[in-house]
């Protein structure tokens, strides 16, 4: 699979090479064979052999069959990619398109049939990526022939952003109506909550990474601070969710400032690794500071949210009305059902996420938001314009942290139980992947990425184990293909309108 990446990204180089050498068939075959040889050398130790645990000892098995199949798939893929660049994009598109659709049909008819294809999903993904690349190139060729100045990628991004104007409200209406739809059972609502949590986290991190251009690899630390602050505040002081939420967000923001103040002067990659370390420190501290966090056992019995003081319980204690009793008394008769709380939680996170979004959209048009983007573009120029880089970055960092903290509080109240396990580096990586794959700086991109990256694997459980692998690979591919981000398309925050009235 590492080799699959070799393929796609090396394609541009192959293209120039092939064009320089007059794309002869022999050359392309040789090139594909060379790729295959490298892939074989890479695959030989790690794919060809497999360490298996047998009781207390480890033994080794071979799987040369799979290794050779994989290498063959890769060499073929490379060959297809070079053909695309050599001008056979349409033919390849037709071939790979038919192949990938046929495969899907096959799986739909007979789920076991996937085994017909060697290496299952993996080779399907390769075929699909070949098809996508072929489509992209043939589209690009056509627009080149028309003399368009804009690259197809930019055009896709621009189109998505423009569609978002219509698509966004539709999506919002759907999000509002979803729990009330007939098909909305517990599973749907839970999935909705999960996706929305990541949308919110993605939007929060987008402020830091997408707008201010600061690579924060420890975002989960603020999520953790928010969750633990909420749990501790709510349990110790008996505050309810809405009272404790701002405090938890504030504490997370304060942590952001505390961490950011010393490290935000550092250059980008130092900042990245320090934030990575910070995420780890927070986790280790939570794991070991038993008095505060109860260590690895975590904190349980975190107060669940109540609806204006009315809990979601089947039988409330004396003198307290529960939500379903109140609802039955004032609107219409309903019985108790656990989904009522889930729906309520769903609307809470929807509200929080929307607040994050509106806040971000507004602040982008304010001086501070423009200064973030300017800092991302050129810090030295910013200093020469009198912008204080440290303070400006600090606000981005603190605001991102605050949203992380809000999301953390929500997580705590939803789960009712938190432990350090939930806040490891993988979590940071997932959030970052959402931001990057969604197209740094693009609000709609984060939504799409969350639905695909979080919702997708929830539905296709058998893909779960490939999820992180695909995240990593896609991050590399997208950076190579579109270093500004997949859906990066920037609307100016202000337009100069022709002067009205007499000059």
């Amino acid at each position: 699979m590492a080799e699959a990446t070799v393929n796609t990204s090396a394609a541009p180089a192959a293209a120039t090479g092939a064009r320089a050498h007059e794309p002869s068939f022999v050359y392309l075959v040789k090139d594909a064979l060379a790729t295959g040889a490298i892939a074989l050398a890479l695959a030989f130790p790690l794919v060809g052999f497999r360490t298996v645990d047998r009781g207390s000892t480890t033994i080794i098995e071979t799987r040369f069959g799979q290794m050779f199949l994989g290498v063959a798939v890769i060499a073929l893929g490379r060959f297809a990619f070079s053909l695309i660049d050599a001008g056979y994009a349409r033919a390849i598109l037709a071939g790979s398109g038919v192949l990938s659709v046929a495969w899907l049909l096959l799986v739909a008819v007979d789920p076991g049939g996937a085994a017909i294809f060697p290496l299952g999903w993996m080779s399907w993904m390769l075929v699909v990526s070949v098809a996508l690349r072929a489509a992209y190139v043939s589209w690009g060729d056509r627009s080149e022939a028309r003399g368009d100045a804009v690259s197809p990628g930019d055009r896709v991004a621009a189109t998505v952003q423009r569609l978002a104007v219509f698509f966004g409200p539709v999506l919002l209406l759907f999000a509002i109506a979803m729990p009330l739809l007939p098909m909305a059972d517990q599973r749907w609502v839970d999935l909705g909550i999960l996706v929305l949590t990541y949308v919110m986290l993605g939007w929060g991190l987008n402020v830091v990474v997408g707008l201010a251009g600061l690579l924060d690899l420890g975002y989960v630390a603020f999520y953790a601070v928010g969750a633990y602050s909420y749990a501790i505040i709510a349990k110790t002081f008996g505050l309810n969710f809405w009272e404790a939420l701002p405090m938890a967000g504030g504490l997370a923001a304060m942590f952001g400032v505390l961490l950011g103040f010393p490290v935000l002067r550092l250059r980008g990659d130092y900042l990245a690794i320090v934030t990575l370390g910070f995420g780890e420190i927070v986790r280790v501290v939570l794991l070991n500071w038993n008095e505060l966090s109860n260590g690895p056992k975590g904190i349980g019995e975190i107060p669940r949210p109540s609806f204006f003081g009315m809990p979601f319980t089947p039988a409330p204690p004396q003198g307290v009305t529960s939500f379903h009793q109140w609802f039955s008394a004032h609107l219409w008769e309903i019985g108790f059902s656990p989904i009522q709380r889930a729906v309520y939680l769903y609307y809470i996170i929807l509200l929080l996420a929307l607040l994050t979004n509106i806040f971000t959209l507004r602040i982008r048009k304010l001086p501070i938001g423009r200064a973030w983007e300017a800092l991302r573009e050129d810090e030295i120029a910013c200093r020469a314009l009198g912008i204080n880089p440290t303070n400006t970055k600090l606000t981005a960092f603190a605001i991102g942290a605050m949203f992380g903290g809000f999301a953390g509080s929500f997580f705590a109240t939803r789960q009712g139980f938190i432990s350090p396990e939930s806040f490891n580096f993988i979590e940071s990586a997932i959030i970052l992947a959402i931001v990057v794959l969604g197209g740094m700086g693009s609000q709609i991109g984060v939504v799409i990425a969350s639905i695909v990256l979080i919702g997708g694997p929830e539905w296709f459980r058998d893909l779960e184990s490939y999820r992180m692998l695909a995240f990593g690979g896609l991050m590399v591919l997208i950076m190579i293909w579109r270093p500004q981000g997949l859906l990066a398309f920037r609307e100016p925050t202000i337009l100069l309108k022709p002067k009205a009235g007499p000059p």
Partner: protein
Amino acid sequence: MTATAMTTTAMNAAAALPLLQVDHLSMRFGGLVAVDDVSFTAMDRQITGIIGPNGAGKTTVFNCLTGFYKPTVGRLALSHSDGREFLLERMDGFRITQHAHVARTFQNIRLFPRMSVLENLIVAQHNKLMRASGYSVFGILGLGVYRRAEQAAVERARYWLGRVGLTDRANDEAGNLPYGAQRRLEIARAMCTEPVLLCLDEPAAGLNARESEELNELLKFIRDEHKIGVLLIEHDMSVVMRISDHIVVLDYGRKIADGNPEKIRNDPTVIRAYLGEEEDETLPPEVARDLGVRG
């Protein structure tokens, strides 16, 4: 040409007050002395040219002035017309622009390439707008105070866009402008910070003859109408000699001459620095023309 230079100098000398006083400025990088004990004065409402061969230390002087480098030795005093005085060598880079109102451009253009032309000019008015937006609080709430301030900022940007001839490119990405337009935009952006001293690092580099001519007009306009001091690093002698009121010549980090264009043009040390040590009496024609030496 000589006559015009003389008259502008004479005219401005009457009104001129010292704006920037550089005393014994030295900047060392390890063993390398990039600027070596340089002193000069730049007058208000004058264009002070800084010239010198490559590597003479011109940009380094700017970097010291604008706080990118902390000078090894030296005093950089800036006097505002209201009598306030700033010691630039003690201030952080961004504070120099914010409080002392020194603005600069860069030898290799530094715009915000993915932001629009207008946004570049609005970002330059950051500090003012931050205050007006109540450090974002009023802004988020959408209060009128902020909206009016933003409108004023747009008007200032519109004015400078008109001045540098970029009004119809206002909503385009700055990075997509042609080279000459980027140079002008950078000057406009510096002017949007409302400076008292404008430092330009080779603004004519890469411009064609017509653009260079327009630049001359722009700089004179800035000096005469906006009544500020300009420090100008420039290799193009036709620009420097014609619009500078005063010229400082650096070579190997040291100041080798200082005076009005007429004096510099005839200074033997300067001619030697430009032509190398071998005393070659016949100047190449284009150098002779630039220096205005009659052969």
